[in-house]
Each structure stands twice: as C-alpha cells, then as structure tokens.
C-alpha cells in the first residue's frame, strides 16, 4: 500500500530493524531516514522516497525525446534537456546511413524519440533500433517535471491511454519530461497538453483519474469512452 506522506531530508520515516532502506533513504541505527525531499513509498519492507522534483537523471532503458544539436562522421549529438547530451551512433539506426549524408537523415533541430542504451563515464549512448523510436515529424512537444512522468503514464499505461482516448492524439512520453503529442487538429493537441499539465500539477491527489476525466470534460466536447477505473493510484516506479 502506498503512503502519501511528504518527507524532508533528515526526517525519520519509520523505525524498525525489519525495514530496508531504498532509494532516497538511509538507515541510521533503528531509523530509516529520508535523504531526499519527496513522497514516502513503503511496499513490503522496502522504504523509498519518490522525488517530487529535481532534474532528470538518465538511466539505461529510458525512452527520451531530444533534439539534434551536432554531428560528426560517426553519428549525432542529441540534447535532451538540462545539459544532458547523448550520442546516437550511425550503427544504432535501423537503416543504412551514408557517412557523408548524415544530415539528410537527421538534421539540426530535428527531434528524435530514442532509448538510452548505456550511461558511462564517457557519456550517454542512444539507440533508435527499438520499436517506437524515430524522428518526430509533426505535432507539438511539451515539457513537464520529469518526476511526474510515472503519473502521466499511469499503472501499465492506463493514464496516458485515457488521455489518448479523450483527445484522439498519439502520445509519446519521454522519461526526460518531454512529451510528443500528435493529433489531427492542433486544438486536440493543445487539449492533450492541458490535460497532461493538469495531471502533472495534481500528481498526488487522490482519485486523480476521475478528476482528470472531469477536467477533460470541462475543456469541451470530448468523445470519452468509459475506461476501466484505476483503483490503486500508486505511483509507478520505473526503475
């Protein structure tokens, strides 16, 4: 069962030798103490603090959405926000690239959906050899607090599916907080934007799915089908 308590660094979350200190916590004698500001999450005996805020830290396997900012013969440099730069090698693209024609494929200012392949001291390596990756051809891009991404996605994608249905848009969510919205009408895209921002701002309110549906309805005619209600509003931990 997820707890909704907010803790500050140095605060004792819970006392007891049985508990295990997870992310954002440390054991101090009998106490599990928070070392980050965020929401407490206790499942089984594992105690974690889920950050409410802070920059995105790239992890292997994450989907990111970023922009081409430079290139050389071996590939492209991708900027995905807050000085996070990754490198996409030519060999990580699932089709043939002539090394003299890199910019014909991905040019400056082009946006790509990619996966983080590895994070090492040398840098971050990206790949687009995974389904769902590739160039963003049309649509709008929005930025949200990356810590809210799990909420926007929802348990097994339930929240983002609801938004897709309410707005008739394709939605691709980057773990770095960049979200690509593509609809037939710009108005649908902007509606999706508003709904996602609503989710982000109300991320730890109870009964969020209902509130989201109410909010969406207040924005104007929407063809919202009745979706399965998500009872458990726990925040999904991606790692």
């Amino acid at each position, binding site marked *: 069962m997820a707890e909704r308590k907010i803790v500050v660094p140095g605060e004792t979350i819970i006392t007891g030798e049985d508990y295990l200190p997870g992310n954002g916590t440390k054991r101090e004698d009998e106490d599990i103490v928070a070392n980050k500001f965020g929401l407490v999450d206790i499942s089984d005996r594992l105690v974690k603090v889920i950050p409410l805020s802070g920059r995105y830290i790239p992890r292997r396997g994450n989907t990111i959405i*970023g*922009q081409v*900012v430079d290139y050389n013969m071996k590939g492209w440099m991708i*900027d*995905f*926000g*807050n000085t996070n730069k990754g490198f996409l090698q030519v060999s990580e693209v699932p089709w043939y690239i002539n090394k003299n024609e890199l910019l014909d494929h991905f040019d400056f*200012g*082009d*946006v790509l959906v990619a996966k983080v392949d590895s994070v090492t001291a040398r840098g971050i390596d990206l790949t687009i050899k995974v389904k769902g990756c590739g160039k*963003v*051809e*049309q*649509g*709008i*891009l929005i930025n949200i607090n990356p810590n809210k991404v799990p909420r926007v996605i929802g348990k097994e994608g339930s929240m983002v599916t609801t938004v897709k249905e309410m707005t008739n848009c394709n939605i691709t969510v980057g773990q770095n907080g*960049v979200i690509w919205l593509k609809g037939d009408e*710009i108005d649908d*895209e*902007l509606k999706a*934007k508003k709904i996602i921002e609503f989710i982000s701002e109300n991320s730890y309110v109870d009964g969020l799915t209902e509130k989201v549906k109410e909010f969406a309805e207040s924005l104007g005619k929407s063809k919202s089908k009745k979706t399965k209600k998500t009872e458990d509003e726990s925040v999904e931990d991606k790692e």
Partner: protein
Amino acid sequence: MEVPNVQKQRIIEYLKEGKRFDGREPQDYRDIKVELGISKSSEASCSVKFGKTEVYAGVKMALVTPYPDSPDEGTMMVSAELSPMASEDFELGPPKINSIELARIVDRGIRESKLIDVKKLCVKEGEKVWSVFVDIIAINDDGNLLDVAGLAALIAIGHAKLPVYDEKEDKIEHELSKDSLPIDKEAASFNITLHKIGDQIIVDPNLEEEEISDYRISLAVASKKGKPMITSIQKGKEGTISSEDMEKILNTLEEVWNKQFDNILKLVFEK
C-alpha cells in the same frame, strides 16, 4: 533544449488562425501582477509579473555633482541584472550584452519621454543635484523580460519619494519625505515590444515565442492629446522589416496602446 523545428511549425500554423498555444490572441497580454514595497529601504520598489515572468525594480537616490553641460539638471541611471537565478541561459559574471541592452532600452524610453523633471532635481546649480538610480533584477524569465522590466522601472519611478535631506548638515536621512520624485505624469511612456512570428505580429511573447521570432521591435509610447506618441524604438534580432510589416506594426501598436494605456497608467501612479 532550443525550440525544435517541429514546434516552430506548429506555432506558426496556429498563429495563422490567430491563436496562441496558451489560448491568447496575438494582442493579448498575460496576467499582470504588481506588488509594491519589496524593500522598505528604497525610495520605491516593486515586483512585476507578466504570467510567470517576474522582475524586481527599485529606486535609490543620491546627491552628485551634475554633468558640466547640464549644471542645473538631475541625472538618472538604469541598471539591469539578469541574474542566473532567472534562467538557464544567464551566466555568472559581469553584465553581458543582453542585460546591457535591456537597461539601455528601458533607460531610453524613460529619458526621452521626459517623465522625470530633472530641473526640479537641482539642489545647487553646478554643485549638487539628485541622481536617480533605477535598478532592475530579473527573477524568472518566461519571455518578454524587456516589457516587464520597463513597466517595473516605471512603477518604481511613479511611486518614488525623495529621502529626507538635511541641507545644513548635508546629510541624507534614512527615511522618506512626503515629497514625491518630481515627475510629469502626462509624459509617462511605456514599453511595448512586438515580435514577428510567421505572418503575425504578437505582443508579450512567452519563452518559446520569443526564441523563434524573426525580429522584435520595442517601442516606448507616451500619450499626446489622447493619441500615441513614440519616444524611442529599438529593433532587435536578425530578421528584417518589410514595409507591409511596418504598417502592421504601427497598427498593432495603436490597437495595443488604446487597449492597455489607461490600465498601465493606473498601475504606475496609483498607490
């Protein structure tokens, strides 16, 4: 991340229909919020917000020797700090060209409008005059710092009181007198910066709009017998202005001025 091509396309497309992403029309300002008295140790101070863009401004006064070519006139100096607190793009260190330009644009607008009655700032001709220091600090950049700063400076000046000055002892006390800084309210001009994006001219851009615009043009506009009078202009960025654009700009200027001027005057002079 810079604004990507894909986004720029959408913004321009949407503007063709006269719409902006945040629901505004091309000539709409964001919500303007003013808070007075940010510092009780100042002759006047305020915080001004357009949406999420926020700027602090304050007025301080000191006695100085006048410039030799204007021995009976007070002086004014506008400084601006684009604190790295306000934006990922602002660096530590001495003022860069963006803060220098901002300060000079705000300065020019106020100076050329002759808002401050500099002759009344003379204490002893050739020897002692009041100097008005206007300091502007950027707190959060979400686009259009220029206009927010311009308004903040104006509001601070509009509310400034002279410090108590003991002429015999030649000492400026740490308290304010009841006398206002001598200004000509009729002369007030405020800064309107217009941006060209695609085919549209917009006012009060947010951060994205500001970044993708072809050019910006800042005009300080006062009132002369109920009609707009331009007291200074600065065009910025690399795009060029066609003669059709110039028509559009002046028309937009007049429309915005008609809509906003009275509200702005209230903010500048009301207690």
